[in-house]
């Protein structure tokens, strides 16, 4: 973890609500595990706390995050222009742990793709991407991933499977039976609830990137704590022991 100062190189509008921000940094970028995040300072009167974003891409001297405009902070972030100075803190948290499975099934819902992009970039073995989005507009977020033949679901049926990504996955999951596979997922909470329901009978190994509002991102405030199934550690901090958790560890 360190303080990383940089300047905005670009802040590209992908859809009305989604942006890809690239920051050029001066100092050496520490090693990053996919799934780790940075706390971004959004310098404005109306924003006090930093905001967490997964590292989407890490170059020689650049760091990118992909984000969705949700509230105040992301709205202001989306208006920041090239050249503006920006302070990041990271990399933070525990990323995805790869245990040499025969197959990884990567499941992303909407902006959740930002949480697994670096993971996909660095994948060595066999993997299959499932990506769910509300409409074909959401394809703008996975342009770089088309060559990996993702299975795509849209809620309005405007592209691929019609429905949510977990029902789409549940239609495919029997193909993987017998294979030593693990699921790596990133998306909203209700996606994880459905996912758990689908996987529960076989207790398929599954890691999820869990989001919670954060005060500090460094384990200091306990603002991000979630309940677990672990009697010894009934509460875990998303920013320190996560954001990537074993799905079976969390009390959803």
């Amino acid at each position, binding site marked *: *973890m*360190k*303080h990383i100062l940089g300047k905005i190189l670009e802040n590209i509008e992908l859809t009305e609500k989604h942006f890809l921000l690239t920051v050029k940094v001066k100092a050496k970028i520490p090693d990053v595990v996919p799934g780790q995040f940075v706390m971004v*300072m959004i310098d404005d*009167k*109306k*924003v*006090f*706390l*930093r905001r967490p974003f997964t590292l989407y891409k890490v170059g020689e001297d650049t760091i990118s995050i992909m984000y969705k405009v949700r509230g*105040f*902070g992301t709205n202001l972030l989306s208006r920041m222009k090239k050249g503006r100075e920006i302070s990041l*803190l990271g990399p933070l948290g525990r990323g995805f742990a790869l245990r040499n499975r025969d197959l990884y099934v990567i499941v992303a819902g909407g902006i959740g793709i930002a949480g697994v992009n670096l993971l996909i970039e660095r994948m060595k073995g066999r993997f299959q991407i499932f990506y769910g989005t509300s409409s074909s507009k959401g394809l703008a977020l996975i342009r770089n991933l088309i060559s990996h033949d993702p299975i795509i679901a849209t809620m309005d049926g405007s592209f691929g499977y019609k429905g949510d990504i977990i029902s789409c996955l549940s239609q495919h999951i029997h193909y993987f039976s017998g294979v030593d596979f693990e699921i790596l997922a990133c998306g909203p909470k209700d996606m994880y609830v459905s996912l758990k329901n689908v996987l529960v009978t076989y207790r398929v190994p599954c890691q999820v990137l869990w989001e*919670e*509002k*954060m*005060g*500090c991102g*460094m*384990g*200091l*405030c*306990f*603002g*991000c*704590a*979630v*309940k677990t199934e672990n009697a010894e550690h*009934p*509460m875990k901090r998303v920013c*320190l022991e996560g954001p990537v958790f074993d799905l079976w560890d969390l009390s959803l």
Partner: protein
Amino acid sequence: MGSIAIEIFGKKLRNPVMNASGTLGYGREIERLWSIKVLGAFVTKGLSILPCQGNPQPRIFDLGCGMLNSIGLQNIGIKRYLEEYTEFFLERKTPVVVNIFGFTEEEYIECALAIGDNPVVLAIEVNLSCPNVKTGGILFGKKPETVFRIIRGVKSATNFPVIAKLSQEVTDIVELAKAAFEAGADGLTLINTIPGVVLEENRVIRGGLSGPFLKSIALKAVYDCSKAVPIPIIGVGGIMNTEDVISFLRAGAKAVQIGTATFVYPNTIPKIVKELKKRRSFD
């Protein structure tokens, strides 16, 4: 660079800067950025006799000029904490202020007893902003009588200096400071977060406010109480930089604690300590 050591509770501290309770994790976490040896003393998260899971999510709200938290005093319990961390503080020769709370008066005393004569402890900081389950949740810190009883009880259960951390949401904080002093408190910590409410999607969430907007209110409490009681006061609330620390010291504080600032600018504490050292040599 001059010395900025202070004497408080009969001990010498490297400097007058502590973290505020609940804002620097259990102690280990920040060491990825700086050593806790930088601190005059380390203040623990609020600890209770039984472990406490705290409140459901969401717990954090950004209010633009500060924040609201509803952590709900999550902690692993005082016994486990002291088992797991005493060694850590011993190694770092960093004195520890143990912040305790209870949901009954007895629980406060049990915490004090659990500390025993632990070698790293500098003092016990009694967080009085905790709901009393026996009176339907009225904070202990609201009434002079309960403040008096709890401080008196904790004093009788420990040989360590006892600091009363008072709630600000009262009609007259000086009256409470006097009650704590009369009960034998060796110091005061002023102030805790201020109760507030946020509305999120029509849900009303209660929590405590912290950050820059507390400063002027905390300075008032420190100034007024320092005139009224002859025990050292530790000033907390909204400190963001060295100027703010100086203001608290001028208002009558002997030491200061820094909380929320660290969340946003994680190097605030080492930066302030460094700047204080530089100044000291000029005055």
